[in-house]
Structure formats: C-alpha cells, structure tokens
C-alpha cells in the first residue's frame, strides 16, 4: 500500500521537477532560486506539501549534505530527488545544507503518541539504543538525522525502506531496522512524529 501511494505522488511531480532541474543545470548555482524550487515540495514555510515529503527545515547540516550527495551518487534512490541533486556541486550542497539547517523546524501539528504507543516505541528504542546515535530528544547531530517531529508517514516509509534495502545509503541503519520487529514500526513512527522538542533545543534553532 505504502509503495503504491508513494509512486502516485512521485509521478505527479516528476514533470515539474525535471523542468526545474533542466533549467538550472547549465547555469550558475543560485541559492535563492534553488530554495524556491525546494519550497515547491518541502514547503515555503517549512511544512511539506504532503506527508511523504520530509521536513528539511532545521535538519542537521551534515545529514542534509550527505543525503544530497547520496541522491546525486544514486546510493539513495528517489525519482523526485535524484534529478534535483544531479546538477549540484559539493559546494552547492554545502550551501543548501547551511541555509536550511538555520531555519526553524516547523510544527506539523502531529499529536504526542498515547501512552501505550509511546511505551511500545520506547521498548524498541531501548532495545536497539536509538538514542545512542539520534540523541536524547531525537534531535540528532552531525550526519545523524533529527527524527523528532518529522512526518509520521515519511518516517514509517523510510524505516521500512531501510529494512527492505530499498533505501540502501546506510547499511548500519538497515541492520538496525532488520533487527527491530516489524510490528514496532507503526508505534515508532507515531512516537517520533509526536515529539515536540523546541523547549529542549532552547530557541528552536
């Protein structure tokens, strides 16, 4: 089911994105224009246009850069993002990462997980030690992603993609997802999506 709906979304945007990517490739990198392009999917106010598209405002800089690099290399596959990353040079990726990491992470209005779901998620989290890498409030750091407040549907899809290998740009994460029982993922996604962590980050970055 998930994959079917994802493909449908992809097809709808493919035309738009190839047009944009095509017009930019030969010319100088222009941060402002690129940011406008990103906004067509990731949102002009940081709230993505649909639930399959992740929040990128306030994401960690190293992680952000590596994803663009991986989309360009093709080690992370996505028909929407690959053509967007293709014309970017390393310095352009750094510039985009530096720009977006400073934006305030948007509130998608996802409710905190109910206690029973949170308990199930917490048990999975403790077992694999997610916080050992994603840190105490799931804020991540460096090349490790922030997960707190990310779109629930996106989180679920990307965890399952790590698990079945269709997201192949981090075998370590794939291993951890394979070692996690299948019926924990819904709970994990709901729990992570519902975390509001601005208060811990001080000023919401």
């Amino acid at each position, binding site marked *: 089911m998930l994959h079917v709906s994802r493909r449908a979304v992809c097809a709808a945007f493919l035309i738009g994105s190839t047009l944009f990517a095509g017009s930019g490739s030969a010319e100088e990198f222009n941060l402002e224009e690129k940011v406008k392009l990103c906004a067509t999917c990731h949102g002009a106010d940081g709230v993505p246009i649909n639930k399959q598209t992740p929040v990128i405002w306030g994401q960690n800089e190293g992680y952000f850069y590596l994803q663009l690099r991986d989309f360009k290399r093709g080690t992370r596959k996505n028909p929407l993002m690959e053509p967007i990353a293709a014309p970017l040079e390393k310095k352009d990726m750094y510039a985009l*990462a530096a720009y977006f990491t400073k934006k305030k992470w948007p509130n998608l209005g996802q409710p905190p997980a109910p206690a029973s779901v949170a308990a199930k998620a917490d048990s999975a989290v403790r077992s694999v*030690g997610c916080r050992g890498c994603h840190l105490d409030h799931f804020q991540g750091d460096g*090349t490790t992603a922030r997960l707190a407040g990310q779109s629930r549907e996106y989180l679920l899809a990307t965890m399952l993609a790590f698990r079945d290998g269709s997201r192949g740009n*981090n*075998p370590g*994460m794939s291993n951890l997802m394979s*070692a996690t029982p299948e019926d924990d993922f819904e709970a994990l996604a709901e729990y992570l999506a519902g975390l509001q962590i601005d208060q811990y980050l001080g000023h919401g970055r």
Partner: protein
Amino acid sequence: MGPVTTYCCGPNNRGVAIYKDKVYMGTLDAKLVALDAKTGSLIWETEIADPELGYSETMAPTVVDGKVLIGTNGGEYGIRGFVRAYDADTGELVWNFHTIPEDSVGEWATHDATGKDMHRDIEAEKAALAKLGDPYKTLGGGVWQNPAVDLKTKRIYFVVGNPSPDLDGSIRPGDNLYTDSLVSVDLNTGEYVCHFQYIAHDVWDLDAVSPPILVDVKDNDGNTVPGVIHGGKTGNVYIHNRDDCSLIRFSEAMVDQTGMWSLPTPEGTPMLPGANGGVEWSVMSVNPDLGLTYAVNLHQPMTYHVESSPYPGGKLWLGGAFKVIPDSDQFGNVTAVDYNTGKIKWQKKTPLPMMGGTLATAGGLVFTGEGDGWFRAYDAENGEVLWSFFAGAGVNAPATAYSVDGKEYIVVGAGGNTQIDFKRGNNIIAFTVD
C-alpha cells in the same frame, strides 16, 4: 568544525593535552588543532583524515618529546586505522603507523587469549580470502584512547579496536591483525615493536578500548618485570610483559560470560557480556602498594545479530546489530583485581552499568562515578564505600587529582553518557581533600 562528522556513540570528547604554551585537541571532523594556551587562539590546524570516509576524533592527544600522538575512530565505518605523531610546533606529520598491516591474515587462531574456542570456520575464511583478497583497506582498527608512553625505552603501548564491519566476519577473512590487540611501536619512528591479539577475527565488538597502564608486575617465576595491563571488553584484565607484549596472565572474569563465544545469527544469539563489554572505554587505575587495579564493569544481556552488506563508503557499517534483551537485569561493578595473581580482590555491585573510569590515590582511596549521578570514594583495600556525593547528572568520566600550593583536589565531570543514555549534565566539580 565542518558539518560532516561521522563518529560512534554520540558526540563526545575525551580531553585535551597541554604541552609548553599550547593546548592540543582532536575534533569530531577529524582535525587536530593547536591553540595558544593563554588566549585560545588557533596556532595550527591539520586535517588528520576525511570525515566523509568515517574518520573522527574523540580521543585526547598525548604530547611527549615534541610529538603529538593521536589515533582515529571509525571502526564502525570501515576505515583503515592508524596512530600518528605530529610535530607539536608545526603540525607536520612525523610518522604514521597503520594499525592494519597490508597482510592482516595472521595465523588463523582458533582460541582467544583466555583459551576459549571462538568457533571460527577457518575453511570458509580461507575460501573467502582466496576470493576477496586481504580486506586491510576497510578493516577498521580504530584507536580510541591514549597510548601509554615508556620514556625509558621510548616505546608507546596502545590498544586497537574492532574490525569492520563489527559483526560480519564473512567478508573479512583472517585474524584481522592488529584489531583487538595490544600494540607497541617506537616513539621516535613509529616502527612496530610487538603486539598481542586478544580475539582474532572478532565478530562481537568485544574489542580493546580501555587505555593500557604501565606498571611493574610479577611474572610467572615471581620476578618483578616491567608490565603493561589492559582491561578488555571481554571482562578480563590482561597482564603483559612490556618487553615483547607477551601475555603473562589474565584475570578471573569480572563479569558473567555466559555463552561466550556464541556466533551471531540473523535472528540474534544471546551472549554475555553485551556489546558494551565487561569494561568499555572506562579507564582503570592502579595502587602499586596493594598490587591492585580497579576496573568498572557492565552487565547488559544482549543478542548479537548478523546481516551482511558490502562496504558502504564511509557510512555506518555494522554487519548486524546488538540488541539489549528487553526487561533483562542490568547492573555494574567496581572491581579490584590483583594483577600479580589475576584474582579478584573485591567487587561491589552498582545499580546501573558503569561507564567512566576509576582514580586510585596514594592515600588508599578509589574514586568512581555512576550513571545516576553518584560519585563515590571506596576503600582501596576492601571496597567499602567511604564517601558519596550526588552530582545531579551521570558521572561518566574518570576523576583526576591535582594539587595547588600543597592543597589537594579531586575533580570530575558530570556530563552523563549518550551511548547508554544516562542523564546529561554540564558540570565539572572539584573537591578538596581535608
């Protein structure tokens, strides 16, 4: 610092070194920096290695004889480990020692340093070697902690961490030299002197990460010889002859080793100790008058899972996963080991697994902290708790002692721990000894 940092187990830094008028520090993006000790301004900066390939620095440099010694992290990313010396004045590279030699195969050891069968499938490994070649280029072998320096012989002693990928041995045939080993090299040239491997072809990440200590020990004929001791993640203390790195003895197990060495499986195999070891990065200390060394331990039952994947070019490369067994009992120990006999002299249980380290003082005390915020002093001879202080956050760093104008101080950091998620804090607390 640059945006790309690829380290293991949470952002952390294990300290700086001060030498003459400079302060030296490694950074998470694998740089070595020298700062003016008075002003903090940057004097030089060297990129040690490329963080996009999984290199990072969390260890404190050691500065001696005009050289800054530093290793690298990255055993979870498929690096090729090293220890290096940089010129303290200029930051130029003086020498480089690869912790993974081009011939990493070794002698196909079937048993570990304590004589336990590691259940290696040597035939399968030999077939893999013929097919894949020597895996040395991506074999890991990070060095997490400071070398011990013997100023008399101008040799340094350090321990080398796990092979990459951690749990999947199928694509890295051989003993994986010098992973999971004590290694000695020449301080002036970086040339190899000797090594001793604890676990050949490790598939449990029960490597060697606690810094070695130089101390005189009794050999098996009862003679006192220069020794070097190390607390392994296996939960044994290893006592070596400093001359040739040979093992004189190993201690009784400080932790439960039930199931050692069961091979990891796709479904997960339970084994003790868990992958955080019997002794993690925690530093040991010694009381030479009593002939005791003090280690802190973890008891965390885990299952070991294997899943094969090819080298991912600088991304996390674990070859599987370790999972804490839900609802299992977890705790820690403070253990005193007689390094002249290998016997445990005393052991005290703590409510949480221990990560940090010990400080032994000449006055007969042992200081160590716990993840729930307690910092305690034990009687070095019998382990009685003599004093406790509540620091409010995990005391997961070793304490140190110093004196100013004859007054003695004990200082410790209470910053908590990311790896096993102990309460974070931001305090450095100093105590006076009256």
